[in-house]
Every structure is written in structure tokens, then in C-alpha cells.
């Protein structure tokens, strides 16, 4: 059975959530939806930090590596001296590597967000599940209806 608590007020909502957790309800049995990001919820429910930073790190590192590999690789592939500059002119390649670091880091972070949040949530899109402006706590009591 699902027991639902609805609040208009953030303080009352947080108080109720704390009460539930303190009374021994396991955070996994609680589903919380809020109209905006409420930092305190993560502490009360003991949510683990997001793995998103791993995606960001991998993306940024891949972009940096790709930027240098791409520019240096193509320069060495067909060495052509122009403007009296060295074949591998690293300072000028920093720009390309920097931009690709940000591009890959940003895009892979976004893809990571979609993956971790299970977006696009097709069942929710099809069923048309809505989220209201209230603070809602749904407690799975584990009892049969």
C-alpha cells in the first residue's frame, strides 16, 4: 500500500520526511518528488553522491586526449611546414584540445545524466504521469491493499 503525504510548505515537508526516516522507515521505501531541488532531501534520505562526475571526468579526459591526438596525428601524418612554424606546434593545438575537452565533457555529462536518470522515461511519457507543484512523499508501507 502506498501512503501519500502532500505539502505546500517546504519546512513541513522536510519535517515529515525526517520524522518518517527517524521512525525507522527505510529511505528506499520512500519516493519523494519536489517542485525544485531541495538539498536537504539528499541528506535525510542518505542518497549517495551522483556518479555523474565520473561521466564528466571521462568525457573531459577523452576530449583532451582526442584534441591533442587529432592535431598531432594529422600533422605527423603528412608533415607540411607552413609559416615557419614547427610541424607539431603544441601551443596552437592547446586551443583545439581545450575546446574538445569542454565539448566532450559537456556532451558526455549530458548523456550520463540521461542514463543515470533513465531518460527519456518512455512509460511516463506514454502514460502522461504528471508532477504537481506540491512536495510529495510516497511511502510504500509494504502492506497488501
Amino acid at each position, binding site marked *: 500500500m502506498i501512503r501519500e503525504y502532500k505539502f*505546500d*510548505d*517546504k519546512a513541513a515537508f522536510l519535517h515529515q520526511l525526517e520524522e518518517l526516516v527517524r521512525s525507522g522507515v527505510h529511505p528506499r521505501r520512500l*519516493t*519523494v*518528488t*519536489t*517542485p*525544485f*531541488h*531541495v*538539498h536537504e*532531501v*539528499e541528506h535525510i*534520505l542518505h*542518497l549517495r553522491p*551522483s556518479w*555523474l*562526475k565520473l561521466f*564528466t571526468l571521462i568525457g573531459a579526459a577523452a576530449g583532451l586526449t582526442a584534441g591533442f591526438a*587529432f*592535431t598531432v596525428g*594529422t*600533422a605527423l*601524418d*603528412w608533415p*607540411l611546414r*607552413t609559416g615557419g*612554424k614547427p610541424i607539431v*606546434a603544441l601551443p*596552437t593545438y592547446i*586551443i*583545439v584540445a*581545450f*575546446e*574538445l575537452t*569542454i*565539448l566532450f*565533457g*559537456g*556532451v558526455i*555529462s*549530458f548523456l*550520463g*545524466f*540521461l542514463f*543515470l*536518470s533513465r*531518460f*527519456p*522515461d*518512455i512509460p*511516463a*511519457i506514454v502514460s*502522461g*504521469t*504528471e*508532477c*504537481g*507543484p506540491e512536495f510529495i512523499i510516497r511511502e510504500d508501507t509494504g502492506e497488501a491493499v
Partner: protein
Amino acid sequence: MSLGTYFDQLEHDVLAAMRKPSKLYWAALAVSAAAFALGLGCWGWQIYEGLGMAGIRSPVGWGVYITDFVFWVGIAHSGTLISAVLFLFRAKFRCSFNRSAEAMTVIAVMTAGLFPLIHLGRCWFFYWLMPYPNQRHLWVNFRSPLIWDVFAVSTYFTISAVFFFVGLIPDLAIARRRFTGWRHWVFRILSLGWQGTAEQWKHYAWLYMFLAAFATPLVISVHSVVSWDFAMSVIPGWHTTIFAPYFVAGAIFSGTAMVITLVVPMRRILGLDTYITVDHFEAIAKILLFTSLIVSYSYIVEFVLAWYSGNPFEIAHFSFRAVGDYRYLYWLMLFCNGLLPLTLFVKRLRRNLKYLFVLSLFVNVGMWLERFVIIVTSLARDFDPYNWGNYAPRFGEIGITIGSFGMFFMLFLIFTKMLPVLAIAEVKEHSS
């Protein structure tokens, strides 16, 4: 008023702006679309006739098109500043402007991106700019600032678009609940099934922070790279180390002015006076004043560097800027960008929206002139007097420039009716 009632009212007011457009809106859209059509017509004419119909020729090979490119990239910058930098600094007033500013960024980069193609003349060869091996397996020259531009501007567009979309997701879910019919379905799909659960918000908050952290150095790098299109050459007036910070400050200055130009009428037409307050405008006017001071300081430094260098070409060039054939544009630029914004030291003027709106128009003009003066005067008077020559834009170039403004305003007007113009979830967070 209880928080629930306030949230309801907020959602209603912001989404009401997306309802049936007024006659004023249609008139503004028609004028913008007509200007855009003029620009398209002129571009078509240029493609038919060739680049010779434009006024650019030796020695001034970069004219109004490159001026427009730098101007629009600059306009884009304030969007990122207001969204990302002010987010990292936890400036609360950003939530009144950030959605409009982000939309402005995406639209301005799209507008800017057209100008290298227009300037190419044979725009169907634009793909030569892309990093790919040609039939001889030769790659583009990665040492060229023009190729850095390709990377910088395309990265900027991608990250800005992602940042804009991510910020919209919770608000699209609100719009999904509030609208019916085809719009409900569009918002249902675009909101990706957002429910606002604790897990979703957790990942969302991290993503938003990372994107803001990426966008901040990006905004600095993009206009630095644009400035290096000039500074990497040896032309007097261009070859200076001050260009990168000077261009970045100028970009934020012009972008902030454009935010004011857009948001003052938008607030009035869409009835958002309660949510975009005079206090918010005062905060943004302070940014305008601050960046104006940096830009004015850069103008002074440029002259001092030329004088102190003892380089006769640099000295001759800057004398030409101040008293040469383009002097009226130069002094008008100084008036608009350096002198007029000083009035913002007066609190009463910072809080006067009509004054701010008029001032922002002057700054827009001044910043366009700044780019024109930098680009054209340097090319018109380089080292060799036999290679001197003046430039004046022709009808086609003016038409395309007007068209770019038409495109920008048209897309912005469409945005105000298609998507929530305020970050509703964020306003809720701050008001709670």
C-alpha cells in the same frame, strides 16, 4: 499568500505569456520577419552576383560581415555570463534573466554562424572549414586562428544549446501539466518524462553545475579565440596582447546591453513585472557599468601601448583612428561605450527602465561600431601607403546586417511564445 498559492500564481503568470499573442506581438514579429526577408534577399542577390556586389576589396577584405560575426558572437556571451557565471557565484537575481539570456545566446550564435558563410561568397564550400582530410589527405591548418574559431564557435553553440535545454526540463514538465492539445504532447516528449524525484534532482543539480563550470571558461575562450583572429596577425592596431581580455569584456558588455534591450519590452508586453523587478534591472545595470569601465580602460591602454611602444606604424594607426577618415565613428563609439554608461553611477538612472532601455540601444550601436572601427581602420591603413584605401559598406551588406537583426529578433519573439521565458523551478526555489 501561501507558498502553494504563490507557486500556482507563478506558473499561471509565466505560462500565460505563451498564450494568444497580442497585436503588438504580431506587429513586432512582422517587422522582424520583413527585415529577415530583406537579409535573405540580399544574400541571395550576393550569391547570384558574386562577392563583388559587396564593398569589401583590397586592402579592406574584412568589412561589415566580419563586424557582424564578432558582434553577434559577443552578444551571445552575456547569456552564458548570466546563466553560468552568476549561477556559480549564486547570484539570485539571475533567475529573472537567465532563460531569456540563454535563448539569446543560442539565437545569437546561430546568427553569428551565418556570417563566415556569407563572407565566403561561395557559401556552398563552407565545409572546407571543417576538419576533414581532402582528396590529397591534407588536413586543415590547425595552427590557424580561423580553424580555432570553427572549434570554439561550434563547441560554444553545442554547450549553450545543451545548457539551455537542461535548464528547461523541469519547466517543460510544468508546461506539460498546464497545457492541453498538441502543445501538451510536445511538452510531454520534450520533458523526457520528468517527475522531479529526489534522484532526478540529484543528477540534475550535478549536471547543471558541471555545465556551468564548463561554460564559464568556454565563454572566455571563445571570444579570446575570436580576438586572436586579429591579434595573431602583424597588422598595426590588431597585433596586441590586450585583445583577448578586451574582447571578452566587450562581449559581456554588449551582451548585457542586449539582455536589457530584450527584457525591458518583454517584461512589459508579457506582464512579468512581479517576477522581473526593478532591483533585478539595477543589478544588471551594475554589470553593464562595470564592463563599460573595463572596455573604456582597454581603449586607453590600446593608445598608451601604441605610444609607449615607439613603433611608428602603431602610433600612426592610432592617430588615424582618432583623427582619420573614420573619426566620427570612433568618437561615437567612445561616447556610446565609455561616456554614456558612466551615467549609471547615478542610482536613479540605474532604476529607470526607460533610460536603461535607451542606453542599451546606444551601447548596442557603440559595440557594433567598436568592431567596425577595429576591423576596418586597421586594414585601411597598414604598413605600406601604396596599400591604403577606405571602405564603405554597400546596400547588400547593409541589407544582410539588417536581416541578421531581423532573424535574431524574430527567433527571440518565437521563443517567448513557445517556451517558458522564466526559469519557474528556480524562481520557486529562491522564493521558498
